[in-house]
């Protein structure tokens, strides 16, 4: 075929191409490695230089022209493709992801807030000696306040002599406060520490008590860490945690042997904003934490001189935070392993 013929037929055929596949085949037919136009170019080698130049440049012009026509036709075809509609009301294909347990989620949120205020995250053993769980925290044997913590005791190992000594008896920690002691024994001032952890109480379980639960302990001490500082830190935390700038924090007296004064922290009910609801039992306030200024006897137990050191400690239940935040009615759900519960978070 001559260049003129190619030009004419190709134009006609391209115009008739009904879909992209036909168009692709035409493109191969004319412009492909063995296509008509290539044939023309191949035949040039037998011609004289002048001829070569002339036909060569015509062929290249045609290639450009045809490319344009192909593209135009392609665009036209693409525009006119009729797609079968998708029923977008059909539910999306199920992709399973796993869920992080709400205790972990809340714990991470709490850690992040305190970390941003310069608190280090510490951990401690779940098995403790009587000394760390009680004596060092100013709760000696026969202290009436020991009744505040019903304790799981471990059967002493008859072959382990130290476990027979009075305050070395082993137990499951009833609170995370022993971590304060471990931490102070191994660190210098200033201390800003938080410690999440599992605790155990020997008590019957009900919707708001379980014999195993998670606590969060905080400790901030320096030469002059004050009660006013405590109020700032704890308010900043709860405001951030519940994401409410106008959340109110109330401090009322309480008693724990390892602090003086002992405090209870209440927050304005984040559910009803103090209008009254079942969560706050219509009082507008929810008890969220125990706290206080570290007792001098505790400083003495870790070898600090209480004359030069002061600061605060606080603790609260992680499940309780989750229950308030997510309206969870029963603490026993956390340890149930029930995926119908966990998959909601």
């Amino acid at each position, binding site marked *: 075929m001559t260049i003129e013929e190619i030009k004419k037929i190709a134009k006609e055929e391209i115009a008739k191409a009904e879909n992209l596949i036909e168009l692709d085949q035409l493109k191969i037919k004319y412009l492909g490695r063995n296509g008509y136009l290539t044939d023309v170019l191949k035949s040039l080698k037998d011609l004289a230089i002048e001829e070569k130049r002339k036909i060569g440049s015509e062929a290249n012009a045609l290639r450009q022209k045809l490319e344009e026509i192909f593209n135009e036709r392609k665009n036209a075809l693409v525009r006119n493709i009729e797609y079968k509609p998708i029923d977008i009301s059909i539910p999306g294909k199920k992709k399973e*992801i*796993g*869920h*992080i*347990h709400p*205790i*972990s989620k809340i714990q*991470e949120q709490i850690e992040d807030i305190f970390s941003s205020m*310069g608190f*280090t*995250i510490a*951990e401690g053993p*779940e*098995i403790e000696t009587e000394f760390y769980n009680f004596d060092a925290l100013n709760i000696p044997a*026969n202290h*009436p*306040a020991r*009744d*505040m913590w019903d304790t*799981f*005791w*471990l*059967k*002493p*190992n008859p*072959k*382990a002599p130290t476990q027979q000594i009075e305050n070395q008896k082993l137990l*499951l920690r009833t609170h995370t406060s022993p971590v304060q002691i471990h931490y102070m024994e191994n660190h210098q001032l*200033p201390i*800003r520490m938080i410690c999440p952890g599992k605790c155990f109480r*020997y008590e019957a379980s009900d919707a708001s008590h379980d*014999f*195993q639960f998670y606590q969060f302990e905080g400790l*901030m001490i*320096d030469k002059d*860490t*004050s*009660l*006013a*500082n405590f*109020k*700032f830190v704890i*308010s900043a935390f709860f405001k951030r945690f519940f994401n409410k700038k106008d959340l109110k924090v109330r*401090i*009322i*007296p309480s*008693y724990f042997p390892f602090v*003086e*004064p*002992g*405090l209870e922290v209440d927050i304005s009910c984040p559910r009803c904003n103090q209008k009254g609801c079942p969560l706050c039992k219509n009082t507008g306030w929810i008890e969220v934490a125990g706290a206080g*200024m570290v007792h*001098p006897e505790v400083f003495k137990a870790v070898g600090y001189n209480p004359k030069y050191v*002061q600061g605060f400690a606080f603790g609260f239940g992680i499940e309780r935070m989750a229950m308030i935040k997510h309206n969870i009615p029963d603490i026993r759900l956390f*340890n149930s*392993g*029930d*995926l*119908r519960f*966990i998959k909601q978070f």
Partner: protein
Amino acid sequence: MRFSYNWLKEYIVNLPKPEIVADILTRKSFEVEEIIKLENDYALNIKLSPDRFPDCSGHIGLAKEICALLNLKFKEPKIIFKEAKKKTNQLIKVKLENKTDCLRYCSRIIQNIQIKPSPKLIKERLETCGMQSINNIVDASNYVMLETGQPLHCFDYDSIAKDKTIIIRRAKNKERMETLDHKMLELTSDVLLIADSQKISAIAGIKGGVSTGISDTTKTIILESANFDPAVIRQSSKTINLITDASIRFEKGISLDLTKYAINRLAQLIQQIGEGEILGGIVDACPKKPSKKILGFNLKQFQTFAGFAIPTAEIQKIFQRLHFKILKKNKETIFIEAPAWRLDIEMFGDLAEEILRIYDYNKIPATPPQGIIIPPEKNDNVIWKRKIRKTLTSLGVNEVYNYSFVSEKDLENFYIKKNEVIPLKNPISSEYAFLRPTLIANLLKNSSSNLRFFDEVKIFEIGKTFQSAPIYPHEEWRLAGLISRKNKKDNPFLELKGILEKLFQSFGVWDVEFHNWSSDLWLIKGRAAEIKIGNESLGIIGEISPELAQKYTDEFATVIFEMDLEKIITSINEELEYEPLSKFPAVIRDISMVVNNETSVAEILNIINDTENKILRDVDLFDIYEGENLGNAKKSLSFHLIFQSETNTLTNEEVGRSLEKIISALKDKINAEIR
């Protein structure tokens, strides 16, 4: 502890409504848990903190507290009564075995008593406070306890031994005694007794005995008001496992001033209700007065402690409202004497608490801490636990939390010996008798309960396990999980293995190895592997035996893994290193082969990787087929081989040469039949 609103009113001029009293107490002293409306009165149910028992476990003390809080006037009750000429000390003697167990012991005698029911007012008030009325004498002593906080005891004079000597002594081991409510107690030397030369008349500070109890025929009574070492009473109460209204007060300490005050008040009350003649004087064994508590309150220290200042005049006013005497003051320090009834006041912090709570904790300004900013220390354990949670959940596995306990049955099921685990002395139930040595037992229980609602369960847990050890028990962080599904044909082993491989890859660890494992009897032999990085064994993965499946998961196919979390953390390297992307295209060739059934994929991979280590980038198993048409004991495996060079575009010839080498190695070494 319950208090009567009307009773409080007797001591307080212009006492406001119960709601206001409850509110101020909760905000500044201790929590009023509820206000109970009664026919003619209100009962306030108060949660006294242990340190405030000594001064507030009686209505008089609580009234003083309320007066201090609301700045009201306290009406001091007057104690006046007539005494007979006959003296108490002519009729009884008191002997203390030692002066550390019993700190003070006062007795009085009242003659010509008639035992009968109490007057209405006393009955009503006892009831308001949750106590039962018994008879006029017992009720009177209980009434005075509720009024003053000092427990008292009355017993029958005629029933004590002839030498009429009251002895306060420790019990002998195995000595027995019958209480007023006819319970037999076996005692130890931890228990302090009130006795005579022949018998026991009461457990000191806790409970009266039947032998000298008041009966309908009692004519002469001994009143006892005493003060005991709180630790002794607490120990005693624990030993005999008996807690009473008296013991809860004694174990927290009582002011020594109250011993005499309360016995006189009781004598007065018994006379007021029209009974008996009070003999002259008190037999006061070991008369003691509380020592004066004088403390210096440093104003500058207070300002540092509180973080703000309260005007000195205001501080002084608060001390006065609380009946603290101001002895002396200078610019820096106020010297005060604490009232005798405030046993809880011992040091600076106690005084600071008094000032701050009365002033109002809520007026404390929230002040940001000052000081150097130090970034918090990094805690690897916490960081890695978070990453593991994130990765596993993104791979479709759910996180669960379980109790840290297992039963004896669980131990048997897992062939774990009892001497390897830690038993509890006081388990909550037999289901939770031991600290868990493995996370798997409870995970299997989760799996079973969830398969009632789901066809498939994929869960993991991060938690501590516990092992017995010679000196101190061993605690270990572990990561464990499982996949269990109802469709038995779809064995989850490789899925779980893939999840673990991805987990490690996400930490930059590409060389996790799985080695055959047959050490655990509860896993199916040939379907279990040890998980290793280098020489470090991290844990196991495997399908649980049908026996175990039957016990926990209704025979569904369940594959578990359990690893030592700390070993994982030390093995993984946080710093993922960037590998440059090749500029040259990859070439993929597939290769299928038939091999003997016992040939493991690991063997084949080793041969391939050993043969070509220059341009082979990756090998991927994409198909396994076992079928009759292959012949017995044969399987067909297909791999993608990915070739890529970092220096040039690979030619067909290069790839072909390499592939030839690999094929001939496979033929040579494992007799593979390449298809």
